[in-house]
């Protein structure tokens, strides 16, 4: 039963980060390409993260009802900031000489973005995804409050029943998950950087 | 004034300073020179105790500095670091006033000092005192870095490659200024460089170091006449040509790295180029590559618009020399006008290079050395 709760937590995090990338990456690119949209996009994702997580989940629950869908939507909104932000910054920071070289070779804006700029910005983007993943693992403890399950339910139950073992089990599982993904993704990023610098 | 007695410094097993002993008289301008990593900076920093030697003693005015409180010691020694290091959170005035403030000078006194110093380097107090370092050009920042070291009128000033990152024009201006300051303020100056021409221009005495040891300590004339090692000779020969001075031509002294643009280039592009290269003028070419004149940043400012092409601005007719002209004639021209350099032209009026004032100084030092051979 405990294993299934860990898996449930992981499922929530995985789906959220996945959709967050699907939504956040294009938004970051958009912010990079379009000066007017840039301000709005960066501002909105920042505001989203200032809303207390539980409140955000509660608000979404009003529309989508209690359950996993609400949790995933909430966590996606919550983890957009690092992904959008890092995509934008990563693209901005691509060496201007390289951008110019791309132009000089007659690549179109779109070509340059796909074949030069995004690949070069990818380590930065990936760092954004890593931050989003680790944050989401923590924030997902609120899922249980809107009927989404996950490790939050064990911790809540532990607190309610004053069961220290349950609290410690939930917390440790959470910490290990966070640290594991953090290290794994740092390692992957290191490989990515090494490969691209060869 | 400053005396080193058998000073040694090691990092791990590497000997950085190897039994250094020398003496610097009050009011002397001493230049430390030598290949990269020979220990110049280390020597300089041991004078104000940023580095502590492992062995040996350093005396200032007869006092062993290891017995002086480092903070007090440093307030009596001006220090210009290689990377300028102006505090970005402080205005120019605050930067210059940093030591006087600690020595409890009155506010009005500090202001007066700042104003005087800034005037000495042709920067108006009104225009610049309240700016921040990031708002100044590299050359202006280096000037302020030097002024900060001078503000509390310390008897000793240490300068670590203070003009390292400058273009030749600004560099020679600042060299002139430092010589003026030295004459006027009568400080003892220890100056690090790896540019022999700079050393020859500035020094009363040159200390040539190699691998933590002094190879030769001599006046510029002496060093020119009798370089003590092949390496020193090499250092001096680097930019010299061995030909006899009377048949040296403009071609022998011109810099072939210069920035020229066609008239049709946009003004915006030109100002970008100037900003990137830290230069204040561009050579203008006609479509057939012939020389048309120069445009200075001042002329662009006066023109007022950044749209349009550079050809819209009437170029300034700078002095020119033919490439085969005698070098001395080119120098005389440069002396006689306000222009900052001579444009050297090929026979078909295309641009071959420019001769700057530093180029000229180099030439003179080299020729002198050549003569003594």
């Amino acid at each position, binding site marked *: 039963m405990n294993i299934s709760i860990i898996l449930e937590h992981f499922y929530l995090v995985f789906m959220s980060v996945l959709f967050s990338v699907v939504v956040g990456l294009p938004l970051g690119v958009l912010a990079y390409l379009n000066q007017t949209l840039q301000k709005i996009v960066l501002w909105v994702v920042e505001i989203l993260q200032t809303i*207390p997580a*539980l*409140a955000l989940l*509660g608000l979404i629950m*009003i529309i989508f009802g209690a359950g996993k869908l609400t949790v995933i939507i909430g966590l996606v909104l919550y983890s957009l900031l690092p992904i959008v932000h890092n995509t934008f910054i990563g693209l901005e920071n691509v060496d201007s000489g390289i951008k110019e070289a791309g132009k000089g070779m007659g690549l179109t804006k779109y070509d340059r973005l796909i074949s030069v700029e995004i690949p070069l910005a990818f380590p930065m983007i990936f760092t954004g995804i890593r931050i989003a993943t680790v944050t989401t693992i923590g924030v997902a403890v609120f899922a249980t409050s809107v009927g989404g399950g996950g490790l939050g339910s064990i911790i809540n139950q532990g607190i309610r029943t004053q069961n*220290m073992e349950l*609290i410690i089990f939930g917390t440790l599982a959470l910490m290990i998950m966070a640290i594991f993904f953090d290290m794994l993704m740092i390692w992957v990023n290191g490989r990515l950087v090494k490969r691209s610098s060869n | 004034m400053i005396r080193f007695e058998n000073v040694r410094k090691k990092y791990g097993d590497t000997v950085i300073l190897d039994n250094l002993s020398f003496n610097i008289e009050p009011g002397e301008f001493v230049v430390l020179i030598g290949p990269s990593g020979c220990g110049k900076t280390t020597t300089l920093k041991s004078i104000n105790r940023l580095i502590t030697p492992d062995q040996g003693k350093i005396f200032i005015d007869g006092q062993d500095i290891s017995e002086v409180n480092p903070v007090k010691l*440093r307030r009596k020694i001006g220090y210009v670091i290689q990377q300028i290091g102006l*505090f970005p959170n402080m205005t120019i005035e605050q930067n210059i006033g940093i030591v006087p403030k600690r020595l409890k000078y009155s506010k009005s006194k500090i202001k007066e000092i700042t104003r005087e110093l800034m005037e000495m380097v042709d920067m108006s107090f009104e225009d610049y005192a309240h700016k921040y370092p990031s708002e100044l050009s590299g050359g202006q920042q280096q000037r302020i870095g030097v002024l900060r070291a001078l503000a509390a009128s310390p008897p000793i000033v240490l300068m670590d490659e203070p003009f390292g990152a400058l273009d030749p024009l600004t560099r020679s201006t600042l060299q002139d200024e430092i010589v003026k300051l030295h004459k006027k303020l009568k400080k003892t100056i220890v100056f690090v460089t790896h540019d022999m021409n700079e050393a020859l221009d500035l020094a009363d005495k040159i200390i040539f170091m190699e691998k933590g040891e002094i190879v030769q300590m001599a006046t510029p004339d002496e060093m020119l006449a009798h370089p003590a090692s092949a390496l020193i000779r090499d250092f001096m020969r680097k930019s010299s040509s061995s030909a006899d001075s009377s048949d040296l031509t403009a071609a022998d002294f011109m810099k072939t790295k210069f920035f020229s643009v066609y008239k049709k280039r946009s003004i915006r592009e030109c100002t970008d180029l100037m900003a990137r290269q830290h230069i204040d003028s561009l050579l203008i070419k006609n479509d057939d590559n012939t020389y048309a004149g120069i445009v200075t940043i001042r002329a662009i400012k006066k023109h007022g618009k950044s749209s349009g092409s550079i050809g819209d601005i009437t170029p300034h007719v700078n002095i020119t020399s033919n490439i085969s002209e005698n070098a001395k004639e080119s120098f005389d021209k440069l002396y006689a006008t306000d222009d900052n350099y001579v444009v050297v032209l090929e026979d078909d009026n295309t641009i071959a290079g420019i001769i700057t004032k530093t180029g000229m100084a180099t030439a003179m030092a080299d020729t002198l050395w050549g003569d003594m051979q």
Partner: protein
Amino acid sequence: MSFFNTYGERLIDAIQIHLFYVLSSVFIGFVIALILGIILSRIPRYANIIMPLLSIFQTIPGIVFIGVLFLYLGMIPATVIIALAVYAIFPVLKNTYTGLMDVKPEYIEAAKGCGMSPIQTLLEVELPLATPSIITGLRMSTIYTVSWSVLAAMIGLGGLGEFIYIGIASNNNALILLGAIPAALMAIVLSLLIDGLRRLIVPKGLRSLK
């Protein structure tokens, strides 16, 4: 109307309590973090071990801090404030430390060369140069704390979380909104205030650098 008659007073109370939790815990956390950050920056060799350990500690969710402290201290405001303060420490500490470590050595050397004592160097050069980073940390801490303060209601200690918890439990949308909107506004207003503070105290010469 009757909705506000019923909840108006309780809402004002809740906002005050929430704000009190946030301000006191951020204040305490900030002071501790600043001091720790300065100390760690003086001993970088140990900091290289301590910082990663702290970041592991940071993965413990706030809910656990509050829950465990609740078991030991009981239902008193100190439980919430201590838990939130502990949580507020890390972003400020991390940013203070990296801000100080990122000060270029040339400025420190120049400061020494000008005869500044270590304390003067810290106060007049290093800390001013690190302020942009420190304030970014303060902003993060504040936003997180507004968010985690919602948990006070979990152990019956009021604040805006009360409306949210009751609303979720009783499926009362209006109550959820009544808690969520002021909480979100509080986070936004506080972060705007901190942006204002940044404009006031980040040294002018650093702004054009960015």
